[in-house]
């Protein structure tokens, strides 16, 4: 037990030196770190959002909406096909996750079924004896659709956030339909939330000028038209004036290639530009409808409905709507980044201001220093010289924890700091176990070397037992935990592993060297 082969001594010293070097990386500034040669690790401990300040948002993509939209698309094509083939139909509607339609004339049923089978390869078409045809989206198609919607949402969120200039955001997919967004350094996520909360689906429709306003506003718009609220800054939400627009989409925001906030006669407006296809459709729509009003619809609300004074052929135009400067900027940003395929809801939000984060770091530092000093003094008071050995091992231990976290790229959170302070308090346990055994052996009348030797040997199984149980708890906490608590699990678990290492190597090495140098006749413990 008390002999170390030279290579082992070298290995232990090497690990300690390496830990010191890796831990020291955290002292460098970002620029210094970037300037290091490429063969060195460029890592530092990341501070959790609770320490550096920032915003954590867990969003859910409403994938149900994507499937509903797809079913609505199927309804439109069913209506078109049946009309073209002059087949009479009834009760065309979405029914749960299927589209149902009834063909009253038995003679036309088979023709209708054949026709609808060809409509969409992703659907199963069945008919019952009453002539009710049910069109069901296949499970695989639904899943693909949902998954694609989440991926696409991720991309759109990334674009929108990048446009705002937040530094180093983390945007990750989580589970089937969730997106985790972490925005370090952001103290007020209201604007970002507003930005990512908007679907930003923009479409251009003609205003239905012939509709009977009384009927339409009472909720009975003519077929093919919709009643939509018209944006009005002075009105309460839900009380805006309403306007009847045709359902048919003349051009949609998908064809936009650029949008910029600008000014027109001192008023903030948004100018936009279409791609070639969009420009042509926009040109055609405006040429054929001069004198009519064109409604610009964003997320189910009419932003404005200007008169078409002349054909707009260049593929670009402007949106007016009594915007403030900020609104015009955000609208342009949303249009540039593209529409979300489905609405998002915020499931969880945790934001910490940078000031509070700094306070937490300060408090954590003070607690760590006071706790460590107390433990160090305590060990010296109660174990004398051996307490000093234990303290050296403790210092190496803390160094190893920091180095371990640096190498794993772990995140340090406030509970994580608590984990380190707690490790300081519990790590000396291994040495306490060893020292108590040595004391006993000394009392039993053994010589120093033999007492120390037996102390280390007998304590070893207990040290492993004691640490493994806490390690089990730490690992399970990591598996089931979330957010900042994981930070605690990480520091606690790394701390346990480094504790086992330092107890069996560092303390033993120091004691061995001391024995050889001092040749003591009794053990001062």
């Amino acid at each position: 037990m008390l002999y170390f082969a030279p290579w082992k001594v070298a290995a232990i010293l090497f690990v300690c030196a390496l830990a010191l070097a890796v831990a020291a990386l955290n002292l460098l500034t970002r620029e210094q770190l970037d300037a290091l040669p490429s063969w060195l690790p460029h890592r530092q401990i990341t501070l959790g959002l609770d320490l550096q300040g920032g915003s954590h948002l867990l969003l859910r993509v409403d994938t149900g909406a994507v499937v509903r939209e797809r079913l609505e698309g199927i309804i439109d094509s069913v209506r078109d096909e049946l009309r073209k083939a002059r087949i009479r139909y009834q009760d065309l509607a979405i029914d749960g996750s299927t589209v149902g339609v009834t063909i009253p004339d038995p003679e036309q049923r088979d023709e209708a079924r054949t026709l609808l089978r060809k409509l969409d390869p992703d659907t199963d078409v069945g008919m019952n004896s009453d002539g009710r045809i049910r069109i069901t989206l296949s499970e695989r198609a639904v899943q693909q659709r949902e998954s694609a919607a989440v991926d696409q949402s991720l991309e759109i969120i990334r674009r929108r956030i990048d446009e705002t200039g937040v530094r180093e955001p983390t945007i990750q997919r989580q589970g089937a339909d969730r997106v985790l967004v972490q925005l370090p350094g952001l103290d007020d996520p209201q604007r970002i939330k507003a930005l990512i909360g908007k679907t930003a689906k923009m479409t251009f429709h003609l205003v239905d000028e012939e509709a009977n306003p009384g009927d339409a506003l009472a909720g009975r718009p003519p077929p093919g038209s919709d009643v939509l609220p018209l944006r009005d800054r002075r009105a309460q939400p839900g009380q805006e004036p309403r306007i009847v627009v045709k359902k048919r989409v003349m051009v949609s925001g998908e064809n936009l290639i650029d949008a910029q906030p600008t000014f027109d006669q001192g008023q903030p407006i948004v100018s936009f530009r279409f791609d070639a296809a969009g420009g042509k459709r926009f040109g055609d729509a405006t040429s054929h409808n001069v004198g009519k009003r064109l409604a610009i619809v964003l997320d189910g609300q009419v932003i404005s409905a200007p008169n078409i004074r002349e054909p707009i052929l260049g593929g670009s135009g402007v949106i007016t709507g009594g915007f403030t400067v900020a609104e015009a900027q955000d609208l342009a940003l949303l249009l540039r980044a593209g529409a979300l395929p489905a609405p998002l809801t915020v499931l969880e939000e945790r934001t910490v201001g940078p000031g509070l984060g700094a306070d937490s770091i300060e408090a954590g530092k003070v607690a760590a220093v006071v706790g460590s000093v107390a433990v160090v003094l305590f060990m010296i008071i109660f174990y004398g010289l051996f307490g000093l050995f234990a303290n050296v091992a403790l210092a190496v231990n803390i160094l190893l924890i920091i180095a371990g976290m640096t190498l794993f790229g772990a995140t340090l959170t406030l509970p994580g700091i608590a984990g380190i302070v707690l490790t300081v308090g519990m790590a000396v346990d291994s040495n306490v176990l060893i020292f108590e055994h040595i004391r006993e052996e000394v009392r039993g009348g053994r010589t120093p070397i033999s007492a120390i030797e037996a102390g280390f040997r007998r304590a070893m199984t207990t040290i492993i037992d004691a640490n493994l149980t806490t390690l089990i708890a730490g690992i399970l906490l990591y598996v089931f935990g979330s957010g900042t608590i994981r930070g605690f699990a990480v520091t606690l678990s790394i701390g346990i592993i480094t504790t086992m290492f330092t107890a069996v190597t560092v303390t033993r090495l120091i004691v061995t060297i001391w024995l050889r140098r001092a040749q003591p006749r009794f053990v001062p413990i």
Partner: protein
Amino acid sequence: MFRGLRVVPPDTKIRFMSMHKINFALSALMVVASIVLFAVKGLNYGIDFKGGILLEAHTEQAADLAVMRGKLDALGLGEVSLQTFGSENDVLIRIEEQEGGEAAQQRAISLVREALGAGVRYDRVEVVGPQVSSELFWNGMYALGASIIAIVIYIWFRFEWQFGIAAVLAEVHDIVSTVGLFALLGMEFNLTSIAALLTLAGYSINDTVVVFDRVRENLRKYKTMPLRDLLDMSVNQTLSRTTMTSATALLALFALYVFGGEVLRGFSLAMIWGIVIGTYSSIFVASALLLYMNVRRSSGAGEAAAVAERP
């Protein structure tokens, strides 16, 4: 050379086993009281588990809680609680979960911001919707359950079943008593509390394991010693280690409690209490439980002694 002081004098011969009935009664009382408190008073769940909104607002002048409360109550957001937090300028606002799913929580925050107006800085905003809060709660429970099971399996491999049952009983005793403390003081029970309970689970079992290791070692060494004396001797032999280790852990935790800031205060307090209880249980309760377990002795004489020992 300085040898260091002794917390516990060497060769103590405290007769722990002779007071085990009082200790059992004390422990039973504490566990029952904890369960009753938990059932009757319940835990003060934080927003992690209950859902809702938590805001830490920093005001320029000392916060006038009555005025703020008036403004917030007028919003009709249900149960709103305010308390100062650390300093007179920091107010912790808790708002119960709003009906109407995730979007309703966001609307409530906007209302609060409007009502309190400018001049208030929000240092912390936490919103946990109904879906996430129930997931967090169940994940916390799974973590607790899984770690207890994992520790039981570990103990089962390492020791004979008698020791395993005694160790697990002691562990459940420690955890239940700590949950009882949360109920008694109405301390917020959140994710950090789960972390405290799990760490305690590990710590408490390790404290017990150290004593049991010694018991087992002594069982092999002193085959004819009556079990009662052998347990007393084992606890006395490990007494110094048990107290030293608890003392260093407590030192670190006191530092966290006093200097670590408001967020960690509940965690530190739960850990401090848990370690005190854990130390008590591994000295006074866990080994005494072995008196009632049919601990196997390897020789015939030992067997007879153990049988004679059973009350």
